[in-house]
């Protein structure tokens, strides 16, 4: 598990999967997690950069940070409700 300043409850490694894979994996994880928990989504898909922030905004959760790693992005998401 990635060491961050956040206490990550679920890490979703969606590398190697294309849209809608990463987003659907994130939605599944949101359904399973508790309010207040942090999730980390790993994706190398270009489409995710647009779609995941848009979905988080629509679903009123919090996109805490996007960390640009070598060859992929790490999205830190907080479940708000």
């Amino acid at each position: 598990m990635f060491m961050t300043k956040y206490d990550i409850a679920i890490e979703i490694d969606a590398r190697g999967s294309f849209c809608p894979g990463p987003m659907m994996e994130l939605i599944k994880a949101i359904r399973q997690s508790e309010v207040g928990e942090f999730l980390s989504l790993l994706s190398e898909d270009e489409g995710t950069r647009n779609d995941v922030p848009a979905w988080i905004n629509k679903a009123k959760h919090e996109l805490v940070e996007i960390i640009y790693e070598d060859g992929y992005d790490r999205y830190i998401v907080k479940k708000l409700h």
Partner: protein
Amino acid sequence: MQRIVIVGGGFSGINVANKISMKTKRKDVSIILIEPREDNVYEPFYLYWSFRKDPLKKFHIPIRKVLRKRVQHIPALATKIDTKNKSVDLSNGETIRYDYLIIATGARMAEEKVGAYEKDNVHHFYLTKATTELQEALKNFNGGTIVISPSTVPYKCPPAPMEFAFMVDRYLRKRKIRDKSTIKFLYPLLRPYPERRVAAKIQELYDKRGIEFVEFFNFERVDKENNKIVSLEGDEIDYDLLVLIPPHEGHKVIIEAGLGDREGFVPTDRFTLKVKDQDNIYAIGDCTNLPVSKSGAVSHFSAPTVAKNLLLEMEGKEPTEKYDGFTICFVVTSPRRSLLLFFSYAYPPKKFGLHNLFIYGLVKKAFKIAYFKAILRGYL
């Protein structure tokens, strides 16, 4: 003599059984197919059948007619898979031992999880009985709002609900009640199809036909008392007729054998198609957790890999054959037109024939002939 047991005789099970029987000799290998049903169904036809009552025999075929003589069909349900003792218990009381097992149980339509299909205005077109009920509901529909939505992802044939919206539009126009009706297509994503260019084309066609697209709608529940469908994102949409694709999950026998993931799908190596952490077990088709669509096309293109790897293992070699995720998909936009798309693990949908070609729409319907005559039998 080695024994291959295949659990599930839908498209994937029949196809792979026939393929293996063509590549092995009767004296070396016995092939047993466990499948409780006597018939195979050409499921893409449900899309058309929702609107017209063709006889069942138009898209059902007895399994004995498409299964090669060498394959023994046992008409029973597998009730237990024992991977330690390499055996399968059947509903008829028999226990069958295997040297190699192929899981091809497909996805279970978990209708009970919706808790609303008993209503006369909540339906789907993924099973025969459900589709007959939808036929009635459509016939009795005289205007109002038709809402179409998936419930869970993944589900079989990703474009099917979106195609259904096109088909319903045409049906209502034919019945001259389109102006009294609203069609809404709800989808978990920001656009009506994962790939942008395809989505743009579909959006253009939806706009032309007045079909409303509702973005980011991840199904949560049906409020059947108030005829509303509610999303995870907190939206509520009223319906007069709801067409909701049922939740998909793995079968009980898979879950109880400890062979399923959270949703009961079988964790499968995406290249070799061997079940993860298991010896002598392969999986094919909708029962797997492969990161590709749940479709007959995927089973068709992956069946040679399963057959080849199994034969390699039987010869004491490594299963080195690889499935690259290649598949195709027709997206029907009217009874005569459709878009043709290509995918693989290495690339997202590549459009092809995005011109909404006349001929492709006919292909999906007419494909039934090739399906029953050649593909199911393992010739192609």
